[in-house]
């Protein structure tokens, strides 16, 4: 009973702190729901100015989309290659021990904590301005994201088959390939393709290294208040996002 009471008190305290923190954040963020409600018609009117989308410069936009897609795909691929070994070391259930697990997770945090455009700028020092630097920046940052999400997917995998494989005395890597991979493959595909999609959508990194990219065109069109062009660019991004989403669904079904 007293331990029950203590637990209840602890929960109450935690809940109170959470509410207080949220309230503070609410203040900082100047949340004002009434204003949002009243403003919605204005929002609609303002948004309507984007009609019809302006595809006059369509060829440029498509070229930019192609560049973006190329860089995002290669960058994500490279990131995934780096992530593949890392994720095994950074998952609680597959890491050889906390002496590997902790540094591996710290490394992942660093890779994610440094924005891809910062990595890209570093690589500018090595390979000069251009898409290659952007690609490398994307790869570094993506490796951190992919490995984190993968490691957490791996932690959720069914432990039984891995246990069975362990009893054969096989190496960790073989166990992972034989008993783990089939179980988590759809999840791995899902997150890798999400990161690819994210990189396709990402705006800042490629502009910084002078590599153009669709995100930069979007930012420019917004700066010029050219809503129909913004709309056109968003439609192109949407096509890419939808294609990647469809491919992701296909891959997950194949791997299921």
């Amino acid at each position, binding site marked *: 009973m007293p331990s029950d009471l203590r637990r209840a008190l602890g929960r109450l305290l935690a809940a109170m702190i959470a509410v207080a923190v949220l309230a503070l954040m609410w203040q900082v963020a100047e949340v004002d729901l009434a204003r949002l409600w009243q403003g919605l018609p204005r929002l609609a009117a303002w948004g309507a100015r984007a009609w019809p989308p302006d595809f006059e410069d369509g060829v440029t936009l498509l070229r930019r989309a192609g560049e973006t897609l190329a860089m995002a795909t290669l960058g994500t691929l490279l990131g995934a290659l780096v992530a593949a070994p890392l994720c095994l070391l950074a998952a609680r259930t597959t890491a050889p021990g906390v002496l590997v697990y902790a540094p591996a997770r710290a490394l992942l945090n660093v890779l994610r904590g440094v924005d891809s455009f910062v990595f890209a700028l570093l690589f500018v020092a090595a390979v000069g301005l251009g898409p290659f630097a952007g690609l490398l920046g994307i790869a570094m940052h993506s490796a951190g994201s992919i490995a984190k999400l993968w490691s957490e997917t791996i932690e959720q995998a069914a432990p039984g*088959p891995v246990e069975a494989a362990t*009893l*054969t005395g096989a190496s960790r890597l073989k166990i992972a390939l034989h008993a783990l991979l089939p*179980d988590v493959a759809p999840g791995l595909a899902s997150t890798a393709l999400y990161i690819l999609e994210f990189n396709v959508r990402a705006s800042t990194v490629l502009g910084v290294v002078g590599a153009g990219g669709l995100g930069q065109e979007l930012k420019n069109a917004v700066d010029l208040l050219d809503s129909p062009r913004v709309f056109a660019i968003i439609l192109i991004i949407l096509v890419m996002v939808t294609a990647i989403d469809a491919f992701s669904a296909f891959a997950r079904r194949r791997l299921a």
Partner: protein
Amino acid sequence: MSGGVVVRGLSKAYDGRAALRNASLTAPRGSFVALLGPSGAGKTTLLRCLARLADPDGGEAFVDGRPMHALSGRALKEARARIGFVFQDFNLVRRRSALENALGGVLASTPLWRVALGRPRPDDARSAMAALDRVGLGDRADARADELSGGQRQRVAIARALVQDTAVLLADEPVASLDPDSAAGVLSLLKDLTRERGLTVLCSLHQHHLARAYADEIVVLAAPEGDL
């Protein structure tokens, strides 16, 4: 203490609740020992402690001469590789075929690239097929584990342990999901192996008549508490 299984005073508790209390048994090399006991008596816990899938709280557990309770690291890994295990809930890789699951038994000796590309050595493939045939699943070798019936899955798990070809086989109710004919087939197969190859079998069973029919010795485990 050469070969076989020896358990002395083995105990294991989960969160302070005893799952296995002071269990002792001996299964000499080449013998077939059946483990009986009510549901919750600790049969699975005992077998898991023997393979060090669980860490016993006290007592000793020797498998094939090795002190499983005391090993760690590389030595543990090697000792484990000498134990075949049939899990009560099979633990198949559900998205792999029956054949691929059976091939899991020789994972340790299969080169990495073969594992990665799913290209088993022809010899291994043959012996895995043979094992599936022996448990009556030759015609379902290409079916994925999650497309198999309960009894078929259990037989794949048995085939995997056979393929591993170890000195000791720990089997956790390996015929629970099988019809009488299949069950008899599996148990007499194991019995034959104890004779032919000196395999030591420690096997938990529910059905007394099967234990009486096949086991050289029967060990009864009582529930550590008044659990039904």
